[in-house]
């Protein structure tokens, strides 16, 4: 592994973990709270992060300054994997990036979820569920010989789409007003974490591509490389692997610097729930080819249709699970 790969991966990972922790950024919370408590604050942070990255990546790749890879549109895998991931992340109490940064803060439940996540990935990638992954991934829809994107499916130059969407969503966010800018716990407001994460995503694309890994931030693949190394000795560590390690350290540093570091252990049944949720998340993410970061941030930034479909799947899976687990019991109790 070269020096630049190591240093840039660590730098981006540290910043990513730090920003996640300060922003308390969690797509699970973001998607779920829209339904559960009609709160869209975290969702806005995610949307802002996506459009900032989308605009930056569109410009860089449009000017031919940076190569990009578009996640494939394995429609069956995207849908099934996305749904599974959504269900799993509600059970685990956090999406994949949320789980990782919480490990850095000292949450034991998230540590178990992370272990489950890695095992779930291996289960689908090379374990008993590999045939399922192969079947679901067997049909890829291409558009004109290329990976399907929001732009080529309607035959428009990606520069237009990649800048129009940020503009439209940006206007929507702006008109939504300041919203809940204050954080009772002293964290970053949603617009700060949205911008920061978007910028970090762009830096990730640039430094990762320049060492041959032509992609941006992602969680599933990097976590897989560590678990594969630990369980079978095969070394596929690369920029992404370094970035993930940096993430956990960055979150640790952020928590420690703000006195939010604390070993938190939930009761036993919750630990099991987190671990089980982690496994389901891992299977879903591996089958879909990405998770809430790989698809719902990085893949969306290159307009991948597969990523859009996966993200919708994650949203629906999360809503169904949140309804079953929390919303319906709460409604029954209030009645």
């Amino acid at each position, binding site marked *: 592994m070269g020096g630049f790969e190591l240093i840039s991966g660590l730098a981006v990972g540290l910043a990513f973990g730090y920003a996640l922790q300060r922003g*308390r950024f969690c797509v699970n919370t973001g998607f779920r709270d829209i339904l559960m408590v009609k709160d869209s604050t975290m969702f806005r942070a995610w949307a802002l992060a996506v459009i900032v990255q989308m605009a930056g990546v569109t410009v860089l790749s449009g000017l031919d300054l940076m190569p990009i890879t578009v996640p494939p549109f394995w429609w069956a895998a995207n849908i099934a994997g996305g749904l599974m991931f959504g269900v799993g992340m509600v059970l685990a*109490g956090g999406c994949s990036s949320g789980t990782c940064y919480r490990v850095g803060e000292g949450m034991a439940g998230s540590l178990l979820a992370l272990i489950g996540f890695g095992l779930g990935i291996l289960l689908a990638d090379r374990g008993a569920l590999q045939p399922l992954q192969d079947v679901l991934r067997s049909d890829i829809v291409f558009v004109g010989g290329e990976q399907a994107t929001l732009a080529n499916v309607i035959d428009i130059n990606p520069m237009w789409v990649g800048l129009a969407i940020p503009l439209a969503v940006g206007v929507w966010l702006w008109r939504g007003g300041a919203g809940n800018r204050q954080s*009772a716990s002293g964290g970053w407001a949603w617009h700060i974490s949205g911008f920061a994460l978007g910028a970090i995503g762009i830096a990730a694309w640039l430094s990762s591509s320049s060492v041959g890994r032509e992609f941006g931030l992602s969680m599933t693949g990097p976590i897989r490389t560590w678990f594969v190394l630990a369980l079978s000795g095969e070394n596929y560590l690369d920029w992404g692997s370094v970035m993930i390690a940096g993430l956990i350290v960055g979150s640790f540093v952020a928590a420690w610097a703000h006195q939010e570091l604390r070993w938190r252990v939930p009761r036993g049944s919750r630990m099991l729930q987190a671990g089980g949720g982690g496994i389901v998340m891992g299977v879903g993410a591996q089958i879909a080819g990405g998770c809430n970061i790989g698809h719902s941030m990085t893949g969306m930034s290159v307009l991948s249709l597969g990523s859009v479909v996966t993200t919708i799947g994650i949203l629906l899976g999360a809503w169904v699970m949140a309804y079953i687990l929390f919303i319906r019991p*709460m409604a029954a*109790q209030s009645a």
Partner: protein
Amino acid sequence: MADTQLDMRGEICPYPLVESKKAVEKLEPGTTIEVLIDYPLALDNVTRWAQSAGHEVVETRDLGPSEWALVLRSKKT
């Protein structure tokens, strides 16, 4: 001193929010509850929910690093 106490320390997301919501909605209007929280996101979430649902945030007491006592008063319907 709050009328009731709910200890949500150590809980994974979203149980602090879910349990707090349940507990506050069960309160007599105008009575208070003290929720013990040790996770920053949970503090944000519960506070935001309480404010948007019309309940009063009486105080947020620091109990130590990453530990708070959030006192809410159930709204008078």
